[in-house]
């Protein structure tokens, strides 16, 4: 079953979006660790849109979630902001010492590491970011 919610792309809607994505997943056999990985990926993706897609104006983000029969959770975040493919950003060099470690690009890197698959497309004037994670 597919569920959809649309919210303003603002930090103060983050908890609503996280709750929307993770609600009832424990009953579907999702482990604590997977729930946290989902929370992380959703936060990083949503906040990225909230901070960069529309400012100085505001706009909305539509979040869709679908759990397939074989336990694959597909979360799609779409916005009508500035076209931007976060996956094009090179991975940060995390081998550098703590003092020199880069902070930029960390969020999308954490998203990629937490999910099984992350993909991006620009279609119909929308940025469409798809997160996929096998729950069981």
């Amino acid at each position: 079953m597919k569920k959809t919610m649309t919210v303003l792309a603002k930090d103060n809607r983050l908890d609503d979006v996280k709750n929307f994505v993770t609600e009832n997943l424990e009953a579907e056999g999702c482990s604590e660790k997977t729930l946290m990985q989902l929370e992380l990926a959703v936060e990083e993706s949503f906040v990225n849109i909230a901070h960069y897609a529309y400012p100085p104006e505001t706009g909305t983000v539509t979040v869709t979630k679908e759990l397939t029969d074989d336990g694959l959770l597909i979360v799609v975040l779409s916005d009508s902001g500035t076209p931007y493919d976060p996956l094009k950003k090179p991975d940060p060099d995390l081998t550098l010492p703590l003092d020199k470690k880069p902070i930029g690009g960390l969020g999308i890197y954490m998203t990629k590491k937490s999910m099984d698959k992350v993909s991006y497309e620009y279609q119909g004037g929308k940025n469409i970011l798809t997160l996929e994670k096998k729950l069981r």
Partner: protein
Amino acid sequence: MKTTVQKKSSSIIVAVEGRIDTTTARQLQQQINTLAAETSHLILDCTELEYVSSAGIRVLLAAHKTMSQKNGTFSLTKVSSEVKDILEITGFSEILL
């Protein structure tokens, strides 16, 4: 997120409960900035810390830099395996005690 501060003669321990995320990171950042001026050794007790996002990691890194600049130390203690996983993904686990 809730914090409890314990001031000792040689260090300050900040116990963090809950989540360091986009909505709470700034609050912790401000608190750390104030406390960093009062000690050379700042320790974050993470027994009750459930979650850290990149916004939280940014705060940890800034705290590490601030303390290093004054020849002090900043470290994390009693980190749960879940939070440790996140720090390891990002190569930040060396900040752990």
